[in-house]
């Protein structure tokens, strides 16, 4: 705090005048602040435009009617129901897989095995999502010559699994070892210790990871293009046929030359963004509180 009292070495004093150095310091503070503002402007602009254009496009038709087969009008109910169904099935597939892998890597695997699996999961997270779509296409669409919603769900699940696995692992690392030892000392078996003690204690955090993975899957478009394809027909429960999803609906309507369809894209984008941001804010705000405690 009493920096002024500390003698400044001669070479620093000579190298630059004190005032000049102070000016450099102050201007760099301003430059970095300016960069922070620049980094935030796009987010603010995006939220503002999606909200303004999206709210203007909201109406009852958008959430209750399917799109017109030809021409303009109708709504996005096919896309909304499709997204819910495909993300739900993807979650059903991804949660047990991601959870098991996370538990194995954190609690049961040897050091080297854990390293290999962790590395594979990190690489999977970095794979462009469209390639996951191409991958699933080769074995769930190509052999059957039929785009289908099941392939879409599998593609979303492949994207969710490494995310769930890594958060599960990180959270289980935070569970104190004493708890496990206490449980084992009581003669409780290992599988029971892992599930009823470690996973139970870490569950809120694991749930956070699952919710973030759901939010990510809900916004994915690219892997659905060559799997679920999208559809203008209402599809409830038939996973063997094409199904629409909100991101696909936005993508396809944004490319149309008709302003009325572009407006629907804004409306759907508003709904999608609202869902994704609400999940993210709720979940992250909770985990922020959790860490400060």
């Amino acid at each position: 705090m009493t920096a002024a009292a500390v003698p400044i070495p001669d070479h620093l004093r000579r190298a630059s005048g004190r005032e000049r150095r102070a000016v450099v310091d102050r201007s760099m503070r301003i430059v970095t602040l300016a960069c922070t503002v620049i980094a935030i402007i796009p987010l603010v602009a995006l939220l503002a435009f999606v909200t303004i254009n999206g709210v203007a496009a909201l109406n009852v038709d958008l959430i209750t009617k399917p799109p017109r087969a030809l021409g303009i009008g109708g709504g996005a109910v096919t896309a909304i129901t499709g997204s819910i169904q495909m993300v739900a099935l993807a979650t059903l597939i991804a949660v047990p897989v991601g959870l098991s892998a996370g538990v194995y890597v954190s609690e049961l695997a040897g050091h080297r095995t854990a390293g290999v699996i962790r590395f594979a999961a990190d690489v999977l997270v970095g794979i462009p999502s469209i390639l996951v779509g191409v991958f699933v296409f080769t074995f769930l669409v190509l052999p059957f010559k039929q785009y289908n919603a099941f392939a879409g769900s599998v593609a979303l699940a492949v994207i969710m699994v490494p995310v769930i696995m890594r958060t599960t692992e990180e959270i289980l690392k935070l569970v104190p070892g004493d708890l496990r030892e206490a449980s084992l000392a009581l003669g409780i078996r290992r599988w029971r210790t892992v599930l009823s003690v470690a996973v139970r204690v870490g569950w809120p955090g694991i749930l956070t990871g699952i919710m973030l993975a759901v939010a990510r899957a809900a916004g994915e478009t690219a892997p659905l293009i060559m799997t679920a394809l999208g559809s203008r027909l209402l599809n409830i429960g038939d996973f063997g046929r094409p199904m629409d999803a909100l991101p696909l609906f936005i993508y396809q309507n944004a490319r149309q030359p008709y302003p009325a369809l572009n407006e629907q894209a804004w409306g759907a984008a508003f709904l999608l963004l609202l869902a994704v941001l609400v999940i993210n804010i709720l979940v992250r705000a909770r985990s922020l509180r959790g860490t400060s405690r």
Partner: protein
Amino acid sequence: MTVLLDPRRLQSRRLSRLPDRAFVGGTGAVGAGIVALLVLILVLLATNSALTWQTFGLSFVTGTVWDPVAAVYGALPFIAGTIFSSAIAIVIAAPIGLLTAIFLAEYASRRIAVPLTFIIELLAAIPSVVIGLWGVFVLGPFLKVTVESFMVDAFGWIPIFRGPAFGIGLFAAGVILAIMILPTIVTISREILVAVPPAQREAMYGLGATRWEVISHVVVPIARSGIIGAIILGLGRALGETLAVTMVIGNGQDIPRSLFDQAQTLSSKIATSFNESEVGLQTSSLIALGLILLVITIVINVVARVFVGHATAAEAGLR
């Protein structure tokens, strides 16, 4: 954390080991499945593009023509589009991202830094297609009348700045990518800067250095390899990003010659052409584009993790 007793040796002999073995075996199989999944993605992309590799060999990578009618396929225009758009993104996002991370880690008080970091992380959660929609209808037209028309007027005589600018094309794609990779660069760099040991800074403050001198002479050099890793991770994200780029890059089939040309990246070419392609050589060639992209992103991600890993290891050693 000291583990006095290794839990693995604590099983009671009187209890049957069967349930535990089944548990370890079951979860272990799923764990092995994660590794198998990665291998399977590589194998299926390779086998399903085999036709293309057999037909064109490595000249597929250097071929500049993509013509389904003549059944000639070359990947170079899309490789070029991918590299150029990502390069634009890095040139914009790396300096802004690093300086933002410095502000958040060094200058801002905790009360400001925590919410700002939260907001920037939120940007990463926005679906690509929503950013693309905003890019097409808001950012593109804005760039066209501001930055792009200015650059064309001022530097249009240089070939790479040749107009006309449409607000759709390579430059717009680069800007969109820059926005999308900023959160990656900012959040990882910030974490690495924060992790630089306080003793290093205090020693420098003790010599009477200003805050900027501490940052530029001590903090950033120590964090350097982690920052490079953060930028490469951002690059990895830019290379593979699909939807937002697809929507703003236009539909150019040639190697772009100007910043404002329309182009295609590897991923946007797959996204726009996949459903219309015939099963056979055309689909195989699109999957071959995917294989090229897969190899590039895996290499980039592994390199980035080596850098970030070194950084954290170095800090652990310093502490």
